[in-house]
């Protein structure tokens, strides 16, 4: 049986969610290499789109890759380079953000960032009875962030809920803390907060706690971070839900790709991960105590 190589290209662990991605990718590498001795998994992280393109070149320069599992920084920038890799006959699995030319993708495990924003917005609008004033924190200016905000604001447009403010906090707990303090100073009445990411949510909660303000009914995040799911499980009144955007989707994709080579299960097609609400009832399914995220 000949040796198969699966390259995995993902963003470097610069904040909580990407940290989770790296964790799950390395777990998958260990597990698969143990289970299938003929499969070699190579995980490579890159701190920027440019670096990711470089990594693709490096990985495919010296060896023929049997498969590439990639979580692209951005769709536009990585489409060409991935197409280049594919031209050598490499099997392409794309995770999270789809390429601009979907025909390149043999396998697509999609996250749905628009749904993350939209589902949260729907839940919030319903709970607030379609009325109220809310503030929003957004992450680093990238496509993911843009899509989530878009999904959220599109839903809110059809309600009487007023979005008082949207500012960047760069998916950073500290900046979220400062920003929330300033929101609280600026707006005497806030009904709810959406932080777009659970990392930032932790900062927001701390700021709210310190201010002693009680009118804030909901503070929501997204991504399904371990600490936040614990809060959901405990039935926290301010954060009763989250939306999964599990970094483990990289692991699923690597497994599916490996299945391809273990010979029994050809894998082709699109797999869209939904963004169902995580509620106290179903939270156990989304809780992985050993994950760093």
């Amino acid at each position, binding site marked *: 049986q000949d040796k198969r190589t699966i390259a995995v290209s993902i963003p470097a662990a610069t904040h909580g969610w990407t940290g989770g991605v790296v964790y799950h990718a390395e777990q998958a590498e260990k597990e698969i290499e143990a289970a299938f001795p003929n499969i070699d998994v190579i995980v490579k992280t890159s701190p920027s789109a440019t670096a990711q393109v470089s990594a693709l070149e490096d990985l495919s320069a010296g060896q023929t890759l049997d498969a590439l599992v990639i979580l692209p920084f951005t769709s536009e920038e990585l489409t060409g380079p991935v197409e280049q890799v594919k031209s050598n006959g490499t099997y392409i699995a794309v995770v999270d953000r789809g390429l601009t030319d979907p025909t390149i993708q043999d396998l697509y495990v999609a996250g749905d960032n628009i749904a993350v924003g939209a589902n949260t917005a729907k839940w919030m609008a319903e709970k607030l009875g379609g009325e109220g004033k809310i503030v929003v924190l957004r992450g680093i200016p990238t496509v993911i962030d843009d899509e989530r905000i878009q999904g959220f604001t599109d839903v809110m447009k059809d309600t009487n809920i007023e979005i008082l403010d949207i500012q960047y906090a760069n998916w950073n*707990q500290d900046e979220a803390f400062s920003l929330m303090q300033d929101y609280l100073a600026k707006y005497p009445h806030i009904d709810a907060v959406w932080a777009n990411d659970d*990392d930032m949510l932790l900062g927001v909660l701390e700021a709210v706690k310190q201010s002693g303000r009680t009118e804030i009914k909901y503070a929501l995040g997204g991504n399904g971070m371990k600490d936040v799911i614990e809060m959901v499980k405990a039935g926290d009144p301010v954060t009763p839900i989250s939306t999964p955007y599990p970094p483990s989707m990289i692991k699923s994709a690597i497994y599916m790709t490996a299945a391809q080579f273990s010979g029994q299960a050809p894998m082709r097609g699109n797999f869209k991960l939904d963004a169902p609400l995580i509620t106290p009832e179903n939270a156990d399914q989304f809780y992985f105590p050993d994950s760093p995220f």
Partner: protein
Amino acid sequence: MTTVTTEIADAPRRIRWADMGPFIALALVVLIGTLINTNFATGTNIANVVTRSAFIAIIAVGATFVISSGCLDLSVGSMMAFVTGVMILTMNRLEPTMGANAILVGAGFGLIVGALCGLLNGLIVTVGKIEPFIATLGTMGIFRALITWMSDGGSIPIERALRDPYRPVYFGNVLGIPLPVVVTLAVVLVGAFILYRTKYGRRCMAAGSNADVARFSGVSVARVRTTAFVIQGLCVAIAAICYIPRLGAATPTTGQLWELQVITAVVIGGTLLRGGKGRIWGTVAGALILEVIANLMVLSNMVSEYLVAAVQGVIIILAMLAHRFIK
């Protein structure tokens, strides 16, 4: 003759307008803030802003030493994350046996780690004779990678049991003054004392002003600079001690890009980037200016969220220009 000259020696120090620049700039920014936004001058907001600026201010006091001595430290942000991570791990490890005392021991250990990190930077620069910019860019990568590795890319939260006893260190106050502000004041006073009133401070400025002159006056420039880096490391550890109770965790994003804010605060404060002149109080004004500007960006509704960084950039340049014209 002698009587005449001693009179000269004791003449009152003239107020130097140039040195007032950062304070005038701060007053200006605060004035503008008060005018354009009614929420700005409220007690809570001011308290928040001042407390928040504590981290940058404390680290920047250390940076004032490093920069006065003619060096530069780009690693402070990453070092802060690393020290925070080490401290939390230590406290968590000790908590089962020591209870809340783990905080004290952990903090003490953090100070040692901070000092050692500073020493590492100092030795690379002085013994290795490597340009500080490059040396600390290297250690910046190293510290950042270590915290990422320690946290598996996720976060290192402090034990629940330690949160409550530790909380007052950030959220508490003494006679109404937030504790981080008290700590900052202490650090600034000690820093000003060392820089202006001790032999070491003199030699630090001399090393930055003209290293050759310092050397032939019998000052060991390498030792002075290494010490400056150690002071910087201690300041980072002090900032880390105040930082942990705020969010209760260290993550790979902790302290990101703080090095730029710290250097900006120091330079706005009137310290020369080429060394030889240090202004501790100016540095504090610089840190406050940065935090007030960031606060005003959120409080006012005038700019698109996309352009906040641009407006901040413009304001910093304008503040420096104003300060220039006052001279």
